[in-house]
């Protein structure tokens, strides 16, 4: 009926499935105009509050799509499936936390451009959301760049802070190089298959691989994987993390460590799982058929995971700065999160999601408390946590819960997250990876417990004055504690929910092109 509208083909699609992205886009543009029109003296937190409302509206739109059939616009240029919904929900929650944190602790003297700060967070979020819900290399890459570019500026937004300038510069240089490497890998794939649509690539790549181009397929995989490892701060590309985390304002650090990293995992899983799904390696001597991704590349991904766990956890031991410690801890966590991908099972999606949820709430909680403590102390050193139990017992107890969750101690979400990942590694008889995972987890107890030792057993030389908790940070902490404990005590409920509502097969299904009725 709408076939001959003046919009042509574009008028035939049901654009309402894009509502979460459009909400964020509208809010980001509106906020930039409001920021322009507001008088200079007005408190810019009003923009933050409006941004938070936008994020929540978008989250409602996203969650209302849970469990629907996959749908797409313009041949998977935009794709809505359970994979996209799950990851977008994680990004939106993470950004909501970053907003609460900024509203509570951001200092006008420190960050001069408060209005810009909030809508750059929104554009970064928009990029992340497109990284999760597209099946086309071009859209995915532009989403990646939008996220990167916004985060470059957010990292360097403390202009009078020399460390912030340095870290922004490092981030730009390493980010651009890794983007170039990713793009170089993608160009090989485009050259081999003649398309950027992931499903068409998957169809054609199997034949291409058999037709003597296997070396180029490997080369493209490694280039793309190395380039994308920048976003998840896994081993070949992890060096930027400590400096950048240290220089960025704390809410931005939290954003980078959770949302940016989750977006990296979204794009890695989406591209490689679909792209290589049909590529089968036939052993020339025995004629045995193997899946390239599951059987051959798993080893290399496992090596990257193991190296990230080892380097992250051992380097974290030596840190005295809390942000640097969390950066190395984040590198190690990226290693854990790669384990389900390396030991590919049908449970991959649930394992990754469960672990990401545990990681999201624990990390966000830690950064929120850190933001309060470093604002109170004037520095980010671990010794600033000394005597936190006497000064603010509730903060100290919630901090302990988050640290235990990251370390993977029972009764917290982190324990079951690690346990599920560990199980799949053992089930695939990948004992060396499981062993490294165990050993490095034990190492990680040392530095996580080091923070607890400061909180409970040391007294602060600056006295025992109480720390005032702003209400928005209080809300964030309560939510984070409740989810961490709930997912730790009733993990099967969470897993069942994920299993029933976010089907993994959904990602591979051909989506119907939504057409307006």
């Amino acid at each position, binding site marked *: 009926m709408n076939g001959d509208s003046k919009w042509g083909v574009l008028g035939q699609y049901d654009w309402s499935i894009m509502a979460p992205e459009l909400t964020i886009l509208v809010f980001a543009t509106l906020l930039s105009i409001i920021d322009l029109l507001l008088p200079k003296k007005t408190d810019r937190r009003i923009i933050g509050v409006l941004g938070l409302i936008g994020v929540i509206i978008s989250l409602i739109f996203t969650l209302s799509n849970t469990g629907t059939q996959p749908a797409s616009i313009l041949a998977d240029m935009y794709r809505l499936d359970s994979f996209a919904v799950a990851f977008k929900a994680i990004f939106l929650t993470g950004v909501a936390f970053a907003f609460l944190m900024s509203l509570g602790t951001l200092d006008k003297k420190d960050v001069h451009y408060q209005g810009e700060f909030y809508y750059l967070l929104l554009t970064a979020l928009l990029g992340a959301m497109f990284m999760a819900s597209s099946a086309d290399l071009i859209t995915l890459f532009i989403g990646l760049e939008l996220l990167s570019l916004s985060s470059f*500026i957010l990292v360097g937004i403390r202009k009078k802070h020399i460390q912030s300038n340095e870290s922004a510069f490092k981030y730009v240089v390493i980010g651009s190089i890794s983007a170039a490497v990713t793009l170089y890998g993608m160009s090989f794939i485009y050259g081999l298959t003649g398309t950027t649509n992931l499903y068409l690539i998957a169809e054609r790549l199997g034949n291409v691989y058999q037709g003597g181009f296997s070396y180029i397929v490997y*080369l493209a995989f490694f280039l793309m994987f190395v380039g994308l490892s920048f976003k998840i701060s896994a081993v070949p590309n992890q060096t930027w993390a400590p400096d950048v985390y240290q220089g960025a304002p704390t809410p931005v650090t939290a954003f980078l460590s959770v949302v940016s990293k989750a977006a990296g995992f979204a794009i890695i899983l989406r591209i490689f799982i679909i792209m290589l799904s049909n590529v089968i390696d036939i052993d020339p001597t025995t004629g045995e058929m193997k899946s390239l991704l599951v059987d051959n590349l798993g080893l290399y991904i496992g090596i990257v995971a193991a190296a990230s766990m080892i380097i992250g956890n051992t380097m974290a031991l030596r840190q005295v700065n809390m942000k640097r410690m969390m950066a190395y801890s984040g590198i190690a966590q990226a290693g854990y999160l790669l384990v389900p991908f390396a030991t590919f099972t049908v449970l991959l999606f649930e394992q990754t999601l469960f672990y990401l949820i545990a990681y999201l709430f624990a990390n966000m909680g830690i950064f929120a408390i850190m933001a309060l403590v470093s604002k109170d102390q004037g520095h980010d050193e671990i010794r600033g946590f000394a005597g936190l139990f006497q000064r603010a017992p509730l903060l100290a107890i919630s901090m302990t819960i988050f640290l235990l969750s990251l370390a993977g101690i029972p009764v917290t979400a982190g324990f079951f997250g690690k346990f599920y990942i560990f199980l799949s590694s053992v089930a695939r008889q990948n004992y060396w990876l499981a062993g490294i995972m165990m050993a490095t987890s034990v190492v990680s107890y040392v530095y996580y417990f080091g923070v607890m030792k400061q909180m409970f057993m040391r007294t602060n030389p600056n006295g025992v004055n109480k720390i005032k908790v702003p209400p928005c940070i209080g809300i964030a902490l309560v939510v984070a504690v409740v989810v961490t404990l709930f997912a730790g005590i009733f993990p099967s409920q969470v897993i069942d929910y994920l299993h029933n509502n976010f089907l993994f097969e959904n990602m591979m299904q051909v989506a119907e092109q939504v057409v307006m009725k």
Partner: protein
Amino acid sequence: MSGQYIAFFILSLLTISGAIFMISFNRVIHMVVALAFTFLSIAGLFILLEAEFVGLTQIMVYSGGVSVLMLFGIMLTQHSKVERSEQKPALRIFTFAGILAFFVAVFYGIQKTPWSQEAVDYSTQNNVKEIGVQLYNNYVIPFELVSVLLLVALIGGIIMAKKEADDE
């Protein structure tokens, strides 16, 4: 040896030598000139491959825009000799070994792969028209996303470059 081959040889030589001179020159102004050579030769390579639209865009965006922008940058900043910090020899060797290994890996791959010998003929198609149709139909979502990206770059550039008035 066809004319195309000779043109390819000259253009690729200019591209590579421009890039090498770019990093080995000491004065910023010389670097920009070397870089402009690289950009122009890449545009030539595109035209050789019958991608004339990309070639012209390359000239407009890079050779024109970026080079002029860089010249402005030089004029507005100090343009004394760039001081080079001496690298540690171990680091140099390590970097060189990494680059060499990467080159060998890619070169081996290109030599080993049985590329199709027939050249694809696109001369009957109207490149510019096809690109326009694709861009505003199939690729309209990334196209719009790029406009957000440019907006972010613009805002970011202003934030980074603006001198703050301390009267607040």
